[in-house]
Each structure stands twice: as C-alpha cells, then as structure tokens.
C-alpha cells in the first residue's frame, strides 16, 4: 500500500453503474480514499461460492458522487471506449497470442524432454494423427456450415504462413510430422493455457478513454451516463455519506440491516460496524415512533446503535441522533 500509488482513478460507467476492474485501482480506492464498494464478480479459481467475490467492484452511487466531487476519480463511458480494432492491431494481438503459446510449449518441452514421444509407439502416433485429422476436418466442415468464410480463404486462414513455417498449404497431410509445431494452426490445436483477459485497458490496445472521460457530475449528466443524485432523497444520501466520510468513517450498504449505510470505524476488512445509518431527507420530515422502536430493536440485536442522519438541504448540514435500547428492566 505505497502512498505513491495516488492517481486519478477511472471509473468505468455502463448502464448507470460504476465499475472498477483494475486491482490497483481497487487498492487505491480502499487504502487512500476509504472507499470499499462491493465486489460482485466470480473469482475464477473458486467459482462456485458467493462468500469471496472478485472484480468488478461496483461502487455505491454515493461513493461515485463523492469520488468525482473530490476529484479522486473521473467517469468513463465504457461501452464506447471499446473501439473497433483495426486489422493491424488485431494482427499484433494474434501474434502476441501465438508467441505466448509458443513460449508455453517451449517451457513444457524443456521441462520434460520428449518424455511423451518416447512412450508413444509408432502405432499410437499414427492413430493420434488420424484423430487430429478427422477433428480438423470436422472443424472445417463446421466453419463452412457457418458460412462466414469461403473454402479458399479458410484454407488460407488455417494454414497461412507464420514466421517459421514452410508456407505449404498442405491438404490433410499424410507425411507431415506430428511433432513440429510449425504452423499456427497446429499451435492452436495443441495443449496450452488460455487466459481470458479481465480488464480492457490492460489487455486491449484499442481501448481508449480519450475524449470519453467526465470529471464533473454535470458533464456526465449531460452525456447521459450518470444521473445520480437526481432528487432530494438522493442528494440527502450523498450529503450524509460525504459528511460521514469526512469524519473518517468507512461506509458500506446497509440494506441487510434495515438502514441506508453501515458505518465502520476502520476498514471493514478488520473492524465491525458500530452504526446502522438511516438518512432522513429534511429536518421537517415526519418520523413514526414505530420506526424508532424497530430501529432500536434491530440495532441492539445486531450489537449496533442506530443512527438517524437528518439532512438539511438548505444549510447542507447533517445532524445525527443515535438510538439504543435503554435497558431499564
């Protein structure tokens, strides 16, 4: 958590939700700006559970408003920032991919030199070749059926020369040695590890947020990508959130505790929340006695005090009242 990480974080906005994909950005938001968000994505290596989730981090709208107002972050119109790549960029991407596959194959071969080849008899090799050929034929037939490539171009595609190949557009070869990973078609058919990239700026050279970043809420609203806060209640929530944040608290969503926010004294990773906060829109808003009873009861049951946060939109001030069960006999 070096402090030198500070930079303006780009929040990727689509469908009026702000996502953070970059893990360094998540670290910056958390360590420096006290903003936690909610992790919502599947962790690929433990994908069948909901306790530990991974990127994307979804931010509460109040968090986004605060980050933009404090100039810690800018909003990016994410769907448009994924530009259509040019052919040359696609070609570079593909050659990078082949290089990485080749490197993987090289690493495997140097680790266990020809162990496999020795164990396979000539007969087995022949059989495997036949299998691969039928598979290739099937793939070709399928590709043809899809109809997006014609026969000749397909041949070109599958067997086009890669730097080291002999550039022979061999039809299902009889004499071809199976051990040579020369053509890229062979290479793609071999066993290697595919990585599905997560974050676009890190892995797609054609991703660019130039001209699509919005550093104020007004400009983002004009562009139609961000409308929060749009009414008194939303303004009140943003105001209360900012005030608590300025007092050094960490906030999380409070929906499971019957409030608007959970209020933590430190990073929620290590500390329990002390309060469940409810936002009251104005100093004159009506408050039912029943609500006080319910909040007091619920807060006590979860070892928290309930915090009523009254927002005064004219003065831009918050007044706080906490409720606890008094416990007289």
């Amino acid at each position, binding site marked *: 958590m070096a402090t030198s990480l500070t930079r303006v974080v780009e929040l990727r906005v689509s469908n009026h939700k702000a996502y953070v994909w970059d893990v360094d950005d998540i670290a910056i938001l958390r360590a420096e700006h006290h903003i936690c968000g909610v992790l919502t994505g*599947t962790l690929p290596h433990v994908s069948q559970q909901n306790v530990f989730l991974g990127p994307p981090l979804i931010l509460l709208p109040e968090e986004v408003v605060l980050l933009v107002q404090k100039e810690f972050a800018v909003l990016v119109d994410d769907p448009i920032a994924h530009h259509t790549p040019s052919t040359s960029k696609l070609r570079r991407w593909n050659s990078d991919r082949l290089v990485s596959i080749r490197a993987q194959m090289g690493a495997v071969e140097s680790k266990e030199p020809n162990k496999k080849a020795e164990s396979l008899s000539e007969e087995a090799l022949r059989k495997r070749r036949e299998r691969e050929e039928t598979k290739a034929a099937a793939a070709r037939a399928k590709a043809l059926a899809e109809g*997006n490539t014609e026969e000749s171009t397909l041949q070109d595609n599958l067997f086009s020369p890669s730097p080291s190949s002999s550039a022979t557009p061999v039809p299902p070869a009889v004499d071809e040695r199976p051990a040579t990973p020369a053509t890229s078609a062979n290479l*793609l058919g071999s066993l290697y*590890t595919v990585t*599905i990239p997560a974050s676009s700026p890190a892995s797609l050279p054609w991703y660019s947020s130039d001209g699509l970043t919005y550093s104020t809420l007004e400009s983002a609203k004009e562009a139609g990508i961000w409308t929060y806060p749009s009414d008194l209640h939303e303004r009140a929530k943003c105001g209360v959130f900012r005030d608590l944040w300025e007092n050094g608290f960490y906030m999380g969503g409070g929906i499971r505790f019957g409030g608007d926010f959970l209020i933590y004294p*430190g990073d929620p990773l290590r500390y329990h929340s002390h309060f469940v906060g409810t936002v009251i829109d104005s100093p004159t808003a009506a408050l039912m006695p029943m609500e006080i009873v319910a909040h007091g009861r619920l807060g006590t049951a979860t070892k928290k005090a309930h915090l009523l946060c009254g927002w005064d939109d004219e003065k831009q001030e918050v007044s706080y009242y906490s409720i606890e069960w008094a416990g007289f006999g």
Partner: protein
Amino acid sequence: MDDYLELPSANAEPSKLDEIREDEDLSSEDEDEGPDWTKLPISVRPVIPKRGEKDFEPIVQGGSGYQQHVLNRARTAMLDALRMPRTISSKGISYGIWHPEIARVHVTTARGTHFTSMGHSVARAEGNSTQRALKRLELLPEEALYLVERGSLFCWKYVESSLLNAPGLDGMEGSPMTVQQTFAEMIGREDLTPEKYQVYAYLRRLGYVVTRTKPPTSAYPQAAPFKTRIHRLSLLERMYSSIRSLITSFVGLFSRSLNGWRPIRHIPWLHHNMDYPSIFKNLRFLHSGHSVPLHEKKKSDQPPSPYEIFFNVYKPATPFKKTTPPAPDFSMVVVNARTTPMPTLSELTDLFEILPELPPPVPRRRLAFVEQKEQRSTTAANSPSQPIPQLSFLGRLITWIYPRAASQIPEPPRKPNPFAVLKAGKKLVIVAVVDAGTTSFFGFRQGMFEEFPMA
C-alpha cells in the same frame, strides 16, 4: 495471534488449517463480518474458509502498529486473490461470437458440462438469405457473461468476415473481448439489467439452474406449465372410496365413542351440516380467502409493474432437460432496492395468480435420539427397498370389513401442524432485492387462514 508478527507473508501456510478449524467454534452471528481474505488459499484446490475475527475499532494513538500490520496483511491477501488470472486449458475452453445486433452469443466451440443447462439452438440464415437456415447454439447475454466471468468461455466480438481474412489473423473469429467489455456491452441487452445479472450469477455460482420465465424468442424453450394439484381419482378408486365411506359411517353409528372435544355429533341425515367448520362457515357473512377478487380495480393506464417473474430457478438436484425444461422449483422476481417500493396488494395478487399451489409442508416426525440412530444405521445397511409387510388373508378381510382396524395397522397420515402450514403458505414467490451489489432474497407467501380456523 502473535505469530502473525513473525510471519508477515500473505501466503497461506499449512498450519492455517488448524487455525481455521479453531475458528469454526468462534463463528459469530454477525452478517457484516466480512470474509477473511487471508484465509482464502491461492492455490488450485478450492477451499472455502470460515469467516474470520475482527477488532472492535482502530486504536487512535497508533498502538503498536500491530493493527496496521494485520490490516495490510488482510488487504494484500484480498488483492492477491483478486489478481488471479482466468486461466483454462485450451482443451477445456469454449469459444463464442458476440453478435450485438441480436444480443446473442453464437457458440462455435462448446466444451464442458455447462451447456447441458445453458444455451438454446436457433435456426438462423447466415449472410445471404438464400442459404438455408442452420441450427446453431446460442447463449443469452447473462449465460455468456457468466461463462466468461468464471473463465470457461472466450468471447469474440463479431467483425466483418472480410476483415478476418487478412493474413496473420488465423484462428481468430472476431475481435477478442475482455470480461470488462462483456459487462459493458451485454448488460442492458435483452431485458438484462445489472441487478438481474447479479442475481443470475449468484444463483448459478451456487449450482442452481436459472432460465428465463418469459421466452425472449420463440426458439427459447419454455418451461412446462405448473401441475395442477387436483388429483383425479380413477373410477375404481371412487367406487371403492364411496363404498368404504358408507361402511365407515355405518360402523361409526355404533362404535362412536363420546369425544369431549366434539360434543356435537355429526349425523348427516338428521341435522344437515352440524359440525363446527360448517357452522362457522354458515355464520360468516364476509367472504374470506384468496379466491375472492380484490375490491381494488386495476387502472388501465398504469405503467407495467416491476414485480414480474423473470427467472425460473431449478434446484441443483432437479433433473433438467434443456430442450424441455420442467416446471420450475422457484419463480423469481428481481427488483432494484433503490427504485422499487414494496409490492402492492394487487401486484402480489397478480403474481400469485400465475403461481401453483404448493403441497403442505411434510410434518416432521419427532424421533428420539436412539431411534434416529437406528434409522440411520438401517437405511445405510439396506437402503434399496424394504419389503412391505404382507397381511394375511384374514387380516385383509378384517381391514375391508372394519376399516378402523385397518387404519391402525399402518400409521395414519399425520395431520399437518396448522402453524407450519400457515407459515409455509399456499403459494410462494421469491423476490431478489439488489442494492448496488448486495443481494437479499425474500419469500412472499400467500397465507391460507380461511382453511385453518382456530376456533
């Protein structure tokens, strides 16, 4: 705990396992106790650790720096886990092409078990319309997103095939998409809101099979309609039951013992309807029950309700056939907590109108601990099928003539506990409420108080 100071590395050590086991006893009640990322092993073997402990609050005067150290350790562990790449063997990965104009992913290489419950085949004429329409496997946005997110599917974005014919692009079916791009482009298409996707992924991760209730196109398989619970008796059964009831009432005339709880005798041909339920029923002058239509009339110009069943959810154990899905185990509504108020009475009524009646909950038979143990051992020993004890001919004759005796041989069906039934309700709809990343599930049940008068 002090050994953390000596071992400031974030790697999971083998000794952690014991620690995790110790923590099980301490697992506390708090829901806001977030997951302890330091216990998530970054290895191949997925082990879900227990939730960890937390401190009350940071010490203001700095303390010994211990708190800061533990916090940093927790953060590092979390960020390391988040950095794990999505890797998969080239022999296990599936490929698909995202067609934004139809909001579908065309699967070109399907591998793995996921496709037994995902995707549907569509006949599409490709390119020029003169070609015959061919069936192909397509994924809805949420299905594709989920597979990409868990690292099973590599998605290409459709580009003109002429562009792909350029040299050096072999093996590519489009422009490659990142997980970020799939989120940005697929959510918001085909009625998929961010909230709905979160609920979909949440349930999928737990192993539920989730499909759309309303088919987006006619090619999408629709779930079987709900079974009506009215059990039609066969002619033979009806004859048997009428004869049997006749005999029962005849025998009952003589054998009836005085029941202190029900002093009124119900003799059908003397006093018509003289038992308690019918008396109360006759006394009632206001109709009750859900069969009575609401007084509130729906306005025609109302905007469509957000309370509409969107997902069909099947338990992981349900035998699921993709082309002819059975009637769902649960029906799910997804709402955004920030914009949607509680459902109104008429919205709930509309929901329950579609849904089937559920059978009453099976009463649990309380067994003594010894019995439970015995049962477990016997079921483990001879689980296939126990022979049903055969009655002798005489026994059967007695059963037939004198049914009361018969009912004592097999155990009489236990009457359901009215409170359990009232709690379970007759119909159930699940509402998933999503508030910026946090999902909660609520079951709304239709009560049936009119069927269990307490008096």
